[in-house]
């Protein structure tokens, strides 16, 4: 019985903890760093598209 209670307690604690983690708002600096990492890759990948965009929109670029 004691063992079951302990298990239940542990489960409740874990659920509580994971609840806290998922509910907490992500810290902004982490988000920004992530965006910068993605940005570089995406920017490089988009070069050909960007070139076409310029060619297809004369007067705008």
């Amino acid at each position, binding site marked *: 019985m004691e063992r079951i209670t302990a298990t239940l307690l542990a489960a409740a604690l874990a659920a509580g903890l994971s609840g806290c983690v998922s509910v907490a708002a992500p810290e902004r600096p982490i988000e920004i760093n992530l965006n910068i990492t993605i*940005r570089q890759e995406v920017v490089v990948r*988009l*070069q050909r598209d*960007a070139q076409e*965009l310029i060619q297809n*929109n004369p*007067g*705008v670029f």
Partner: protein
Amino acid sequence: MTRRMKLLIAAGIGIAVIAGTKAYAFQADAAGQLRGSGLVGEQADGYLGLVSGSAPANVRAQMESINIQRRAAYTQLASTRGATIEEVAAATACQIFAGRVAPNQYYRLTDGVWRRRNGSEPVPRPGHCG
């Protein structure tokens, strides 16, 4: 963002695209003419910017019109490529810096300083271009 706001933004972009097409019919190289005036330059963020704060109202209006058209074009490409508008704009800036800034025209890197392209010296590319 509410549904209504999204609709409004979509309508705004639509109008900008129509207005842009119309403007293009009259001015084939509006952006090049603005850059040539020396009052407007290219920025690392993919948009035109005012080099001097004392630019006449018509120059400002033309610049803003082009920037709206650019944003519409960036938005469209971003949606088809799973990228953000800022990423598409930054990627396009790499191409603009490499091929559109003529000698004596102005450009601004991420340090915020306006520089004039000296003769046929190449324009440095923004750091995000890789």
